[in-house]
Each structure stands twice: as C-alpha cells, then as structure tokens.
C-alpha cells in the first residue's frame, strides 16, 4: 500500500495537499499517526525554551557604533576637503584646462548630485528590507574607503579621477537601493 510521503504530510499540514493525499490520510491510520506526529513536532519546536546569549555584546556594538560615527565624521569632512584641495591644485597647475580636468569635475559633480539626492531620500525615512539594508551598508563602507583614499591621494590626477568615478558609481548604486529598491546592484 502506498503511503504519504513527507512532502504529502507537510502539504496536508499546510492545507495544500492533493486530493489523493487527503483521501488517503482519511483511510490510513499509519499516515494519520504520522501527521499527528508532525503536528506535535512542530508544536514542540515552538515550545523550545528561549536561548540567551552567554555574553553581553552591547559593549562591542556600542564601541563599533561610536567608532563608525567618528570615522565617518573624520573621513567625510577630511575627504571632501582633501578632494576639493586636490581639484584646486589640478586647476592651478593647469589653468588652461584639460580634458582630464573636465572629466574630474564631471565625476565630482555627478557624485555631489547623487549625494544630494541620497540626503533627500534618507530624510523621508523609507523602510528597507534586511537585504536592502545590507546592500546599503556595504556600499556606504566602500564609499567611505574611497573617501579615505581620496584624502590621501592629493593631486594625482588620474588616480583621483578613477576614485571619483568609482565613488559616483557606488553613490549611484546606493541611490538605486534607496530609491528604486533594487534587489541586485552588482555586489
């Protein structure tokens, strides 16, 4: 005699079973017993005692939060100043203007525009899913790393241009996560 599989039992539990499974379980004592056991097992799982963390992780969370705030404050302000200084240096060295300068300015403007968009989006308090929050935090971390590199780069034009482009691309992805709720941004 053919009995219900575990798939059938779970479907019965979920109220999604096939006609055959519903009819069979009505006639078969063994499968009814299996279904009862499944119900009991799930009830037992729900009744398992709550486990508590053996160590308090709040001090570590607090330290990381405060360190992160300090790092962002330092990096964003120093990074912006250094990047502006680097740009000013480039323009002073080449007052006649070059294609590279134009590209650098364009990359900076794009980054600044996206950053401004992001600040507006942040202000409206949108709800993020866990996945979106993870993507956003990963992108923010990468932007912070680039800001740190920009702060150290000074007036190395090609490197600065590359970093500003990367920064604008990451900022674009961050805006996508926050605004369009994209599930995938290439991470």
């Amino acid at each position, binding site marked *: 005699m053919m009995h*219900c599989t575990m798939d059938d039992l779970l479907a019965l539990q979920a109220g999604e079973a096939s006609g055959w499974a519903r009819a069979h379980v009505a006639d078969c004592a063994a499968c009814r017993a299996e279904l009862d056991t499944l119900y009991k097992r799930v009830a037992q799982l729900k009744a398992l005692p709550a486990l508590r963390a053996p160590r308090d*992780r709040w001090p570590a969370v607090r330290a*990381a939060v405060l360190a992160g705030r300090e790092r962002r404050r330092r990096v964003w302000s120093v990074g912006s100043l250094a990047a502006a200084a680097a740009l000013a240096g480039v323009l002073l060295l080449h007052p006649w203007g070059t294609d590279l300068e134009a590209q650098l300015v364009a990359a900076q403007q794009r980054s600044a525009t996206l950053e401004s968009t992001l600040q507006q989006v942040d202000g409206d308090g949108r709800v993020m899913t866990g996945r979106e929050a993870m993507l956003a*935090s990963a992108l923010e971390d990468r932007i912070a790393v680039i800001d740190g590199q920009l702060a150290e780069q000074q007036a190395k034009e090609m490197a600065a241009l590359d970093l500003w482009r990367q920064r604008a691309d990451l900022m674009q992805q961050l805006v996508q996560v926050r605004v369009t709720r994209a599930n995938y941004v290439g991470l």
Partner: protein
Amino acid sequence: MTISLTVPDVLVARAKTGDIEALEALYRAFEAPVYNLARRMLRNAEDAEDVLQETFLEVVRSIRQYRGEGHLWGWIRQIAASKALMRIRREQVREAEVFDEATAAGQAGHNVGQALDLERAMQELSETGRAVVWLHDVEGYTHEEIGEMMGKTVSFSKSQLARAHARLRRALGAGTEVG
C-alpha cells in the same frame, strides 16, 4: 517561542536620532529573540553571538529607514535572519554542504530507533535544513519568503523542509516508516 514585543514609539524616535541610550534600550529589548533566532538557525553559539552583534550594527545603521509600518520585531527579525543565512552561505563555501549532509545522515542513520531529544535532533540537521525548519515552522515565514531570503526557489525551501522533517522523524524514532 512566540514573540510579542512592543517598544514605545518615543523610544524608536529617539533611536532614529542616534541617541545611544535609546539604541541600547532597543538592544536590550530585542537581544534575546535575535540571539534565539540566530542560535536556532546556526550550529554554534559563537556564530549566533556574532549574528546578534551584526544585526544590531545594522539596526543602528538603518533605523532611520524604519517607518513604523509593521512590527519593529518583524523588521529586526528580517535583518537577523538574513545575517544568519549569509553566515550559513559563507560556511557552505568553506565546507561543502554535501559533506555536512552526509555526516548528518550518517549520524541520524546510526540513531534510528533511538529517541533523541528534539534539540539534539535539530543539531544533527544540515545548517540549511535547520534554518528552513526554524524559519518556516517556528517563525512563520512562507516558502516564498524563505526562498527569496536564501536566493533560492520555493521548491528548494519545500524540499529542504521535507528532508529535514524526514530526518527529524528518523532521529526521534517516531512512528512507522512511510513514504
């Protein structure tokens, strides 16, 4: 374990401004359910503690995006479950799931007919199987939601649940063999 946690709106509002004391109050309110969720999904306590820490770092970072639609616990739980699943995926890269499954199957087979307690039986499941059982049967996630969180299909979630329950059934020595 049924979770029914509410925190005052004013506390959430303060946390959104970055008030460290309000953030600590949130941590204290949700520390136990987050750890419990992570511990039930993951094999070892150290990993669960790490998930607890990562979850609250994420909560601190993203609390401004929480608009109060739905229960705060639902939002935090989603972050915690995602963190735990990410850890499981990283583990699977390090040690092939095949080995994990084979080991678990061997242990379960060895214990056929011997009633283990449910907690031990859960520990013998694969990481993925245990996570799916906990998310579906206890936390009430649908297969669609679990599939999405794991980057897998609905069928994957369903088959993992069926395999895990079959293994639990064998480990617990319950009933007659069917199917």
